[in-house]
């Protein structure tokens, strides 16, 4: 195909943005913001082009770019898109752009902030587009590390602790992934890190059984897998708004995507062998996360634990190893990404204005900040699985697949939906209903400019809530091919 | 036990006596003495093995095996150089801290 290297162009958007931010003197924060927004917008535009030109029915990867990078190790600059990563690229574009807009009012160390955020996004885009195992891990870590500074410098509650905990946890994950990746390289014996060729390689059964847990746990940590999830709420609470958005919205998906893109296609026997165990872990995630969320008083903690719970649904969908389940999982990745970004965007505004997120000190927010509250309530309802928003369908697919694969777990997670609803409603009723708290007299409600990014997020939730076919039509052929390759 | 092994035994013992001095004595000069003993033991080792076992007789220049002897000569030179450096430092240290007791020199730790 002699067409434009769209994926490289996509990656170039934030890279150029980063370069431009770095050369812009720090005394021009406005210009820096605009550069960041422009790079986000450009990337989003490229994603739109990708989506338009993407042919769901075509087999294999599209927009493939391939350049030899380190030939002696078989490392290649190899990018491609299929139905599994296209939605996630779109998610990244959405969340990054809205994240930049949400932080428009940031005053403190603007240059460093946007530089780091752009770096983070480079990593995320990279992970989602690359088809080379080396670059996969490369970008994966690129995405993880700016988090430390982003949280520690611009964060709030226990930020240093949260930042360090998050970073170390995630790096423990990579410490498991790196040896596993190298084992995959040598195990295939083809001298390549090309994921598509590694997927075709045949690994021995015992190899698969040994290596799979490393990959699953390694990536699973980033996906908030129980019991290695505690970095996530703490980190989210500490992080500034847009970082929380990116982190819970996109970064946690990297983990699940790693499982989906690396662990499961390369080690199908391992996946089958461990599926039951991972399904149980995922179920614990869902139920446990919901229960802990039920007892939180900090809005962000609630969201953090709800993320744990919702990512459990993704893991559960993957663990079913069925087309339906994987469809649901990918869809849920997207939906949860948008939803949780909206969550944090809403809370971010509230926190900026009222300087507290403790629901005991809040109340009647729907009166004082009706629009900002509405955004939160929409997110909460999405999280609680209200139809009309995209999560509902995603979760439904996962539940359906689970009922097929693990009926008992399906009953458990469906019953746990009541808890999910309970914690969402609890927060809404406590913080947004009731008399306005006397400590927070009149503050300005969210203006139109800051509403726009949040409204965009709501729009996507609704769009795919009303027309899940739009996204599932993209995902489904890819999962079909993936699942067929297992049998 | 062959003749060579007797020599080797002496060398090992000498080496370990040196080691004992090195880790036991507090005086820096005594430690240097111990070190030099170790070097002497190594010289003995080298000369004994090459003299009594020979290795292969040919070398690049076609000479008979005298590698051990050459090594020993160089070793002796090295020992002298080491002695020079070490002694000068010990003297400097003594001037500085009024002691050449190695146990007094343990500020850098952790």
């Amino acid at each position, binding site marked *: 195909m002699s067409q434009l290297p769209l994926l490289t162009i996509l990656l170039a958007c934030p890279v150029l943005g980063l370069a431009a931010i770095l050369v812009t003197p720090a005394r021009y924060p406005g210009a820096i913001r605009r550069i960041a927004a422009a790079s986000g917008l450009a990337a989003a535009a490229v994603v739109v082009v990708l989506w338009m030109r993407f042919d769901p029915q075509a087999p294999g990867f599209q927009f493939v770019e391939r350049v030899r990078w380190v030939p002696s190790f078989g490392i290649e600059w190899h990018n491609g898109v299929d139905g599994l990563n296209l939605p996630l690229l779109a998610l990244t574009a959405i969340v990054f752009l809205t994240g930049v807009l949400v932080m428009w009012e940031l005053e403190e160390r603007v240059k460093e902030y946007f530089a780091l955020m752009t770096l983070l996004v480079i990593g995320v885009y990279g992970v989602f587009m690359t088809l080379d195992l080396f670059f996969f891990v490369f970008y994966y870590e690129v995405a993880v590390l700016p988090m430390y500074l982003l949280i520690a410098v611009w964060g709030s509650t226990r930020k240093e602790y949260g930042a360090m905990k998050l970073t170390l946890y995630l790096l423990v994950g990579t410490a498991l992934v790196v040896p596993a990746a190298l084992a995959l390289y040598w195990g295939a014996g083809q001298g390549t890190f090309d994921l598509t060729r590694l997927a075709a390689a045949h690994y021995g059964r015992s190899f698969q059984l040994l290596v799979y847990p490393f990959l699953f746990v390694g990536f699973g940590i980033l996906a908030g897998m129980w019991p290695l999830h505690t970095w996530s709420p703490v980190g989210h609470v500490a992080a500034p708004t847009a970082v929380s958005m990116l982190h819970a919205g996109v970064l946690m998906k990297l983990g699940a995507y790693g499982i989906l893109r690396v662990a499961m296609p390369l080690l199908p026997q391992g996946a089958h062998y461990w599926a039951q165990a991972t399904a149980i872990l995922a179920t614990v995630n869902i139920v446990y996360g919901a229960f802990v969320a039920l007892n939180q008083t900090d809005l962000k903690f609630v969201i953090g634990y709800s993320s744990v719970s919702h990512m459990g649904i993704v893991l559960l969908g993957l663990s079913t190893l069925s087309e339906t389940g994987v469809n649901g999982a990918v869809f849920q990745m997207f939906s949860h990404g948008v939803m949780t970004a909206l969550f944090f965007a809403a809370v971010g505004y509230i926190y900026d204005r009222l300087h507290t997120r403790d629901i005991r000190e809040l109340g009647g927010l729907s009166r004082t900040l009706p629009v900002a509250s509405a955004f939160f309530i929409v997110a909460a309802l999405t999280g609680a699985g209200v139809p009309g928003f995209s999560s509902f369908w995603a979760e439904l697919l996962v539940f359906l697949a689970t009922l097929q694969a693990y009926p008992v777990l399906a009953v458990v997670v469906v019953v746990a939906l009541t808890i999910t609803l309970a914690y969402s409603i609890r927060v809404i009723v406590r913080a947004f209903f009731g008399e306005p708290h006397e400590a927070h007299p009149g503050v300005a409600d969210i203006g139109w400019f800051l509403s726009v990014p949040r409204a965009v997020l709501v729009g996507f939730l609704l769009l795919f809530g009303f027309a899940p076919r739009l996204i599932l039509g993209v995902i489904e052929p890819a999962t079909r091919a993936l699942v067929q390759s297992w049998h | 036990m062959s003749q060579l092994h007797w020599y080797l035994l002496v060398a090992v013992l000498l080496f370990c006596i040196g080691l004992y001095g090195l880790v036991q004595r507090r005086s820096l000069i005594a430690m240097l003495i111990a070190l030099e*003993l170790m070097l002497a033991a190594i010289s003995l080792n080298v000369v004994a093995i090459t003299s*009594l076992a020979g290795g292969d007789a040919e*070398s690049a220049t076609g000479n008979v095996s005298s590698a051990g002897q050459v090594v020993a000569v160089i070793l002796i030179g090295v020992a002298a150089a080491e002695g020079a450096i070490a002694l000068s430092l010990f003297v400097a240290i003594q001037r500085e801290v009024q002691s050449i007791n190695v146990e007094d020199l343990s500020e850098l730790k952790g």
Partner: protein
Amino acid sequence: MNWDAFLFGSSAALALIGALFAVSLKNIFHNILGFALALVGVAGLFLTLGSDFLAIVLLLVYVGALGIAMVYAVMLSQPLDTPRTPRSLPKIAGSALLAALVAMALWLVIRRAHFPGPPEVLEVAPQWIGRRLLQDYVLAFELISVLLVVAMIGAVMVARRDPGRRAPGTAAGTAPRPGAPR
């Protein structure tokens, strides 16, 4: 009991006893004397191996140069009247144990070594040593000369009294005094 064995036995005994003196006696001068004794023993061992030249060089460099340098160093550095701290018995025992352990370990390895080649004593004429030093060991020869130069200059520099330092143990004045070499 032949002459060789006697010479070997007495030299070895001299070397070991001297070495023990060198490490165990309290007086530093006795140590140096013991050191010299040990080296004489080693030189004797060299003689039994037919390395007369080496024996002489050893005595010259070690006993002649190093021993004297040590004596000087002692004179320069260690006032003989400083009170001695008593030896610590645990340290002696520990060190001895360590030395014994290492000796046993080394011996464990070495005693089973089968060195190739015929067990015959080769007389090596000094001229062969010289020749090799200037032929295939010429690089080593050059390097050791560099090493010695570095060591000499270094020794001078290290030992030289620091003119910028007023008293030991206090921080040197940061302002360069006039006339100090820059």
